[in-house]
Structure formats: C-alpha cells, structure tokens
C-alpha cells in the first residue's frame, strides 16, 4: 500500500512537471529562482524609421521583481532604442498614495523616464480612474484615447468600463484611421489561457466584431499574470503580457489556441513596426528571450 502511494506520488510529480514544461508551448526554460539577470540579446532588426516600443502589463507591484524587469528594459534599450512604452493596466496595484506612485512607477522606471521615454497607460481593475490625470501616463485626462506613431494607430481602451459611448468611439477611430497598422491595448484579454482569469467572453462578444470589421491587426492585454501569444483569431494576433511586475507561476493551461507561453518568471515585450512587418520579442526578467517572431500584414 505504502509502495503504491509512493509510485502514485512519483507519477503525479512527473505528470505535473511534464504538463508545465513539455506541453502547449508553455516555455519554462528559465525560472525566477535559478537564473541571474543578464543583458538581453536583441532579436529585432532595428530598422531605420521604424516604430519601436516596449510593452508592460500588471507592472505596478513595487517589489524587487518589477525593478529587475525595469532594469532589463533599460539594458535592452541600449541596443533597441524604443521611444515609448505602452502599459496594459494595473499600473499601480494596492494602495494609491503618492508613495505608491513613486514606488510602483516613478522609481522603477526612473532611468527610462529620465531618458525621455514616454509611457502610455491603459487602466486595469486595480487602477483608479484619476490615473488618467497623472501626466507621466500620457492619457490626457481620458479613460480611453488614441495616438499615432509612424504608420501605426494605437488605441488605448478602458476595458473596465466598455460602455456604448466607448464602443462608438472605437468604431469611429478605427473607421477614420488610414494607418497601415491598427493596434489596440487594454487590460482584460479577449483571449487568454490563464487559469486565474482567462478570456473575457462578454468583452470579446462586443469588441471582436468591431476589431475584425475595421482591420485591427494586433491586440495587447494583461490581467493574467503570464506571457502568452495566441494563434491569430479571425486574423488578429493577441498577446497577453501581464507579468511585468506580478507573476502567477504555472498559471497557463495548454490550449490549441496558444502559440507561445511563459509563466515561470516576469517578462516584458519589445516591438518594432517597419513597413508591413511587426517584429516582437518577449524577454524575461533575467534577460532570456522567451518568444520572438514577425507578423506580416
């Protein structure tokens, strides 16, 4: 009986290890306990006049891991000089005192802020709406807003409160945009294989038809504290990057929709848009490339 239990235990350990490490594209090549930070090796072309930016989500933890990701971003910028960062919400989690803004945003990204890198925030469920008036978030006092860089139109949406007014605004913005690339970013993912939250089905029901009708190419979301790239859904590539401060270890479930995933350490993304190509690279807190590739429109 005892021997039988031992065998069962060993078998379940092997299965658990295999389910996270072997399957579904969930990349577990590094873990937060056994890897040390190193300079990331940039896999992006750094073409002239390209639009270059970084992506962080669920960053506002204020713990040492957030600072380490921020440091890795600074190192990456030496080789890949991105001009701005998009934030996928939960920019400040927990308290919202001035000290929290300092500890969870101003201090970790001081190097980037001092270098003139702009941050464009969207609101998560842990954010407060008055963050839209916080100048370093460049939201212009609005819950949702739009900006253009090169041939890319960015829409920062408020997925906490997708009211009819915002839905109309999205349609108008996309309809009137002549940009080659249309990128939306917001907190709650339309597609996610995170076990904790997963896909927001009602939000998907309302947004996906608009995105497909008006030619959105790429969507970035957070909320699930993992990195995931999904296989294109109705022609749109979805990324979940919710691990730039917080992490839910082994939170990804295997799915045929998943193209790549990483749930064993914090991460951020670098993106470069050049002509009809969008290059992306996901980098862990320790500088390992956990996913990279190119999308063509």
């Amino acid at each position, binding site marked *: 009986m005892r021997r039988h239990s031992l065998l069962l235990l060993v078998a379940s350990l092997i299965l658990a290890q295999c389910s996270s490490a072997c399957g579904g594209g969930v990349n577990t090549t590094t873990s937060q306990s056994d890897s040390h930070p190193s300079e990331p090796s940039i896999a992006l072309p750094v073409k002239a006049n390209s639009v270059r930016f970084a992506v962080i989500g669920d960053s506002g933890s204020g713990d040492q891991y957030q600072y380490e990701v921020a440091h890795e971003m600074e190192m990456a910028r030496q080789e890949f000089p991105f001009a701005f960062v998009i934030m996928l919400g939960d920019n400040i989690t927990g308290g919202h005192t*001035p000290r929290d803004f300092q500890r969870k945003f101003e201090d970790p990204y001081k190097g980037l802020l001092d270098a003139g890198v702009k941050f464009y925030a969207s609101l998560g469920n*842990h954010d407060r709406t008055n963050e839209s*008036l916080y*100048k370093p978030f460049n939201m212009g006092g609005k819950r949702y807003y739009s900006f253009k860089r090169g041939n890319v139109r960015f829409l920062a949406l408020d997925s906490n409160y997708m009211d*009819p007014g915002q839905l109309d605004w999205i349609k108008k913005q996309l309809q009137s945009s002549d940009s080659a690339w249309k990128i939306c970013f917001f907190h*709650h993912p339309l597609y996610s294989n995170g076990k904790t939250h997963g896909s927001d*089905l009602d939000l998907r029901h309302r947004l996906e038809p608009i995105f497909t009708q008006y030619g959105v190419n790429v969507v970035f979301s957070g909320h699930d504290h993992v990195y995931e790239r999904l296989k294109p859904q109705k022609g749109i590539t979805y990324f979940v990057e919710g691990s730039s401060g917080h992490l839910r270890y082994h939170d990804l479930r295997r799915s045929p929709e998943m193209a790549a995933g990483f749930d064993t350490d914090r991460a951020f993304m670098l993106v470069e848009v050049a002509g009809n190509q969008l290059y992306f690279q996901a980098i862990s807190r320790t500088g390992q490339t956990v996913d990279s590739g190119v999308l063509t429109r």
Partner: protein
Amino acid sequence: MGPPPVECHHYGCAVHLNGVLRPRTLSPLVVLGFFFLGGAGCFPCPAPQNPPSNRHAVLVEDFQNRVAQYIKLHKQVAASLPALKSTASAQELAQHQRLLAQGISAARIQAKQGAIFSPAISAEFRRLIRMAMQGSNAGRIRASLKEAVKPGLRIRVNNPYPETAALPSTPPTLLLNLPKLPPELDYHLVGRDLVLRDVAADLAVDLIPAAIP
C-alpha cells in the same frame, strides 16, 4: 387626502424622494390637473391616460432626475476646489480626490442607500439586468461576473470605494441595457450588488443590493 404614500409610476407623475415632493418632475398635464382640482391636496395620478408600458420611461426619467440632482451637487463641490488638470504630482491627485469625496459626503450627509436607487427604480434595474442576462448572453455575463465576487468587500453608500480593492469590470452587455450615465458616474458590480460610483471622487453614491439574480 394627502399625497400618495407610495411612489407613482405613471408618466409625468411627481415622485417622492425622502418624503419630499420633487416638483421639477411634474409634467404640464399634472400641473393643470392639480390646478383644476383646486389644489385641495389631492394629487392626481393620471393613470388612465398612461399605459403601463410607460412605467419603464417614468422610472428611467426619475432615475435620471435624481442623477442630475447629484451631478449638480458634485459640480458645486468641484467648483469650490482648485481646478484639477493633468499633473505629475500624485500628491495633488490624491488630495483633490479626497477633498472632492469629503465635500460631497458632507453635502449629502443624510444620504442613505436608496437615495437614488429608490425601491421602484431598484426593481426596474433588477428587471433590466435579468433581461440582459437571458438567452445566449447569460453564460458570457456570468463568466465575466465571476471576477466581481469579492467575499467580504463591503461598500457603504456615501463612503469612498475601498482604496486597495480592485474595481471589477462591468460586462458591456449589461451596460448596453442600463440607463446612460453622465461621465461623472459609472456602474460597478461588487459581488451581486450594483454600485453607482462617483468617478472623480471614487465614492459610492448608491447601490442596489442583490442586483444580479
């Protein structure tokens, strides 16, 4: 004969808020009726001319009037504070929010649950939410609502939303079915309760308990 002891739901009829007749909700028809009755204290409720299908419109109008009253108050308090524009000072943001919340709370110190969501309006909102959650929407909305359930999170009317608590997202399909709000307010579901929140003050203005079936 005094005014009716319960709220009247016929279109154009005045509605009682905290026992006080709110004359700005009177329609010209009602005013005329009141005049012809000699103002003898008999308040006419023109039920025969108003079919029950108007009940929804009456309640929504009542709700919007109450909201408009609140917004007036919000603007008065906001006008008494230094104007807030985009700022790099988190201190300034926090202070403005706190002063706004304190000012509004003090100005409606007597406000209790039901000040805006009267029993009749609450019943109508519950009906609208039930309607939105029927058919193919039901599964999607319920899935989204799983995140709204936070055991132990207690929202108190006329008090700030708990600072460290997450603000659950509101399913867009529900928002499509609920009366439109001015930008100063929004709806949030906390557990099964529907909370009406002052956005800039981060203040719970009112709530409907057990709004979600």
